[in-house]
């Protein structure tokens, strides 16, 4: 398959890039000028695009690749890919569900504990020598608190399962109530936010969920509430979140994603009730390797005429 042309448009694990290079005729088009050069010379031959959470083919790019057959994303979120355009053009799309579910759920609990128990702040306290002057202050217990999950999909359910080990009460909001779920359903995000201590954003980013965490929801969560975002930055109205934190209208936040990564609002850097992570939800050696293998296996299956492993479109 060394002659099949593949275009890489998002940042991926080095192992994946190396394998794509070995198996295919790989073109790198992550930065815009690189991409323009590739398109100029090779647009007509590209049969596959590999995307990730940092970059995916929009309608314009899909139109520019007449031989495009498949987009394989190194992520579970596909908000960077114009799925509608892919459907229209008969382009297949695959992502990496399930292999990162546990990872993201683990980190979510880690974020909650880091915020409530001020673990990162405590670490800073020790490293700066402040412990010699006195103890750190009291923090907030996690066990027994009420966890609200926005989006009870694979990741949301995995977070809930872990939180049960901490005797948390679980409630959720989803597009549709899940009749088999043992957790309490709220028909709106505002009601969910009003009734929980910690709100976890775990739904896909779509036009409906863009800025689903807005001023009203943040105010409902309140001065003792904590927002945890392991979805996409655009789920949250970021300027509203920043002002709520600065004004004390929101108790705290644990954020793995931001509206314009890698840009993070600098006003957050001085706050002790926030934890800021560089989009590492799935960032373990084990999971990134499994995700890479899924991308490679989906591409291989496609070009061998076999069924795709994890198709979305």
């Amino acid at each position, binding site marked *: 398959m060394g002659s099949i042309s593949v275009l890489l448009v998002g940042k991926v694990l080095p192992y994946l890039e190396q394998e794509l290079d070995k198996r295919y005729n790989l073109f790198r088009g992550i930065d815009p000028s690189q991409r323009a050069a590739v398109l100029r010379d090779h647009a007509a031959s590209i049969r596959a695009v590999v995307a990730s959470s940092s970059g995916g083919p929009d309608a314009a790019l899909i139109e520019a690749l007449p031989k495009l057959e498949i987009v394989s994303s190194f992520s579970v979120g596909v908000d960077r890919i114009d799925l509608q355009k892919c459907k229209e053009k008969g382009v297949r799309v695959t992502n990496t569900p399930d292999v990162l579910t*546990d990872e993201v759920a683990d980190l979510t609990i880690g974020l909650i504990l880091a915020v409530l128990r001020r*673990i*990162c702040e405590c670490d800073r306290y020790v490293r700066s020598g402040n412990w*010699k002057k006195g*103890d750190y202050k009291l923090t907030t*217990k996690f066990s027994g608190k009420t966890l609200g999950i926005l989006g009870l999909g694979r990741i949301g359910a995995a977070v809930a399962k872990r939180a049960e*080990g*901490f005797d948390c009460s679980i409630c959720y909001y989803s597009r549709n109530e899940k009749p088999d779920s043992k957790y309490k359903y709220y028909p709106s995000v505002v009601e969910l936010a009003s009734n929980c201590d910690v709100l976890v954003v775990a739904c896909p980013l779509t036009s409906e969920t863009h800025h689903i965490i807005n001023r009203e929801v943040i105010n409902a969560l309140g001065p003792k509430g904590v927002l945890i975002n392991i979805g996409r930055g655009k789920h949250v109205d970021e300027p509203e979140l920043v002002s709520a934190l600065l004004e004390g209208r929101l108790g705290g936040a644990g954020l793995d994603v931001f509206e314009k990564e890698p840009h993070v609002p600098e006003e957050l850097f001085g706050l002790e009730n926030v934890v800021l992570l*560089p989009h590492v939800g799935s960032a373990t050696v084990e999971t990134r390797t499994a995700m890479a293998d899924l991308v490679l296996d989906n591409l291989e299956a496609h070009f061998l005429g076999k069924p795709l492993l994890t198709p979305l479109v």
Partner: protein
Amino acid sequence: MAEEEKVEGLQQLKHENQDLPQVLVLGSPTCLQTLKQLYSHKFRFLIPNTSLDSLYPLTAPLSSISAVICSASFSLTAPVLRLLPSLRLVVTTSAGTDHIDLNECGCRGIQVAGAGKLFSEEVADMAVGLLIDVMRRVSAADRFVRTSCEAATWDFPLGYKISGKRIGIVGLGSIGMEVAKRLECFGCTILYHSKHKKSAVSYPFYNSVIDLAATSNALVLCCALNEETRHIVNREVMLALGKEGFIVNVGRGSLIDEKQLVKFLMDGEIGGAALDVFEDEPNVPKELLSMDNVVLTPHCAAFTSECIIKLCELVAGNIEASLSDKPLITQVKW
């Protein structure tokens, strides 16, 4: 320890409410302020006007004291106990009792009460938070974000998966069981070492900590500190745990051979460590202060605002029980 306490000379209190039972408070426990707010109408709290681990050299008041509240940072040694000839009760605000000379208490018929299981959930929560932090590099990542504003992309090293891993718990008491319960929900395999195998528990038991370490991805230390457990995590155990192994310590600093741990962390012989406790608090080996594969917290695993009031209630309850010759709520037996 706690924030600056109001200094009270023991002599001044002679003139105040003489009828209330006197309770000597040693080691500035974190709950002291709340204790005074809630129980000054029931007890006369006597606080030595020194911040050192030594009693103000005094006379009459000490000889009549029958109850002492003591924090984990105060060494209640035999010499100190001998300054209190009427002592009948020691209430420690910690779950641990390694700072108290229990033998001396036993010889003198002094009862000891501890925090019992009060902090177990809090400490277990923190243990899990520390485990996730060190394996997924949470604190290091937070530092990275706050200092890399100008970066064009985020290039941050990958962490290690926690779900499904093998976690070796050293000490399967109340805290150890709470840790196990939480990590089971992460799909982890729980293994343990304890003084004795626990028949009611189905987790695989390891008589040797070295064998436990050899088969675990991480060790979580939850046991009490005593003669048998001092440096229970030594050079051999750490080598068995290996270069991709992690240690979480929410017990006592001296459970680990700290000098050896530092050396192994510097040499890459061990994957990382998350420590809430140290051999010589509040001093932390300076080599650790610049490492990204360690998480360091200031002995605060138990301290949440939720538990402080409960702790005060427990302390007061134990004192009242002792005063009325009733069984203590959380008597420490040894």
